[in-house]
């Protein structure tokens, strides 16, 4: 019984809210104020029972808390004291006492915010252009350095300063060449994995297609096979992408250049937008061009945000419409159609009443 009543109330209130689309009206006003009242009431109850009592009760209630054993019960006193100071806002004469608490809250937030925000800003400053050594050139440099070190050791003696320095240099070059070799190997290993994954995906897709051709195309087996093929294809794409990534890390290539181009665009974007917002010099000449570039980036951002927002709003609307559809059935007494008709009737009556009033006036 309560469940069905709940459905009627939910549908009725949803329609109250939707009635705003026609125009502002008493139904919507009632709904709006109901919402405000219930939200703050609900938040208050939640606050009392889920934050305040568990965090304070454990101290007051000896069985619930371990703090008594740890002699840490006094820790609850500062927040209780500071909390009561906030409530002095209701007594104008002593309202200034609440400043102490606000000072603590604001100070806490500020102290915590500085390092946190600084970390965020750091993430923005990525290195701009990458330089990657290929294995061939690194190997060549290492071989040359090794030869030089051997020659020096032969001519000036292995213990001489020059020979030792040359040896250290040669080792460093060799280390870099080894790293380049590892990157190169990673590319071929990733490539082999990608080939294997792609072959598996092709097989799976072929199998699925054959099954669809043979049997009824809509059967569950066919769906399962298609699903399997899609997942295999996804894995293959992932493996191929990994190969490309490994390749782009192995030597300077078109891919890395594209990455650098992207980074440069990002960099220009960040700075032109910052420029547009923050530099208070007069925007003319090259400054104007640069800040205008910032506007272009901002416009793309706002457009993309709008595009995404559409999806968000439509999703919410979809959610509500599903609820209205589910309440169309006899099991809940045709709540949606009945309430919809009732509300439209009332709105029509109100409309004519207002019209009469206007005419009489």
């Amino acid at each position: 019984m309560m469940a069905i009543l709940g459905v009627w109330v939910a549908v009725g209130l949803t329609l109250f809210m939707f009635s705003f689309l026609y125009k502002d009206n008493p139904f919507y006003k009632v709904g709006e104020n109901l919402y405000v009242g219930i939200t703050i009431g609900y938040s208050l109850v939640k606050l009392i029972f889920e934050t305040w009592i568990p965090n304070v009760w454990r101290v007051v209630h000896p069985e619930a808390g371990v703090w008594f054993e740890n002699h840490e019960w006094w820790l609850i006193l500062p927040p209780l004291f500071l909390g009561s100071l906030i409530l002095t806002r209701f007594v104008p004469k002593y309202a200034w006492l609440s400043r102490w608490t606000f000072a603590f809250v604001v100070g806490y937030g500020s102290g915590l915010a500085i390092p946190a925000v600084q970390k965020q800003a750091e993430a923005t400053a990525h290195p701009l252009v990458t330089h990657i050594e290929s294995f061939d050139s690194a190997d060549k440099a290492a071989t040359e350095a090794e030869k030089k070190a051997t020659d020096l050791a032969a001519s000036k003696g292995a213990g001489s300063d020059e020979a030792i320095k040359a040896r250290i240099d040669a080792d460093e070059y060799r280390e870099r060449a080894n790293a380049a070799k590892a990157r190169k190997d990673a590319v071929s290993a990733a490539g082999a994995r990608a080939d294997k994954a792609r072959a598996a995906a092709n097989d799976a897709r072929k199998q699925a297609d054959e099954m669809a051709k043979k049997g009824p195309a809509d059967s569950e087996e066919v769906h399962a096979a298609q699903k399997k093929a899609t997942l295999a294809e996804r894995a293959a794409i992932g493996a191929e992408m990994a190969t490309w990534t490994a390749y782009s890390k192995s030597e300077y290539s078109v891919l890395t250049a594209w990455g650098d181009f992207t980074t440069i665009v990002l960099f220009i974007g960040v700075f032109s937008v910052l420029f547009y917002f923050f530099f208070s010099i007069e925007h003319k000449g090259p400054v104007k061009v640069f800040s205008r570039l910032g506007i272009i980036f901002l416009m793309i951002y706002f457009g993309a945000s709008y595009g995404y927002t559409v999806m968000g709003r439509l999703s919410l609307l979809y959610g509500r419409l599903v609820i209205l559809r589910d309440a169309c059935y006899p099991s809940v007494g045709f709540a949606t159609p009945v309430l919809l008709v009732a509300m439209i009737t009332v709105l029509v009556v109100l409309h004519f009443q207002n019209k009469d009033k206007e005419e009489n006036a």
Partner: protein
Amino acid sequence: MLHLKRTVPLAIAFLSGILLLIQYFVPHPWSAKFLQYTSDWQVTLAYAALLLGVGSLVQSHVTKARRKAPGWGFSAVALAAFGITVAMGMWWSVHTAWQSRTDASIVTTGSGEGSPLSWVYNSLLFPMGGAMFSILGFFIASAAFRAFRVKSPEATLLLLSAIVVMLGQVPLGAHLPGIPQLSAWLLSVPTTAAKRAIGFGVALGSIATALRVIFGIERAYLGGE
């Protein structure tokens, strides 16, 4: 008196700010304990802040209802809804607490399963919250129709970026040649750049404000006088 009203709060803000800043850079068991205690205090403190908010809201509605200002009936609705919700939550907790009075864990049952408050949540709060924001879906459609005009190069850019992203979003559009790639690029490069710049600006602003608070230059939180 002036010291109590101004110097003490400024000192509190300075001390708490500077200590929390220092604890970040000095990893020591004491600084960790300090951070943990102050954070726990903030959690417990939040009750008073919410009480303050609830108090002022109720006050404003009561004034409106008492003066019989235009639309006071709606204020009465809000007050009644608030009162009934709180009463339901309280009644249920006291009721369950009485039933299981030997159990120390009674304290969080204010809105447990089968309670009147959970019914209120599911049948009132939930549908109204959903409906209120879903109305925006209608307005975004009419805004698309009325406001999105090719009036200038910037507006054109805005419109094109919106259309590409919208088409890139939906499954069918993702099969149009080039659209998903372009949409992904728009999101991962120019959009990210703009967002980072905005984020950077906000970061600089917050650090500046935080420093101003700690050093007592920013005093807006003290209120008037």
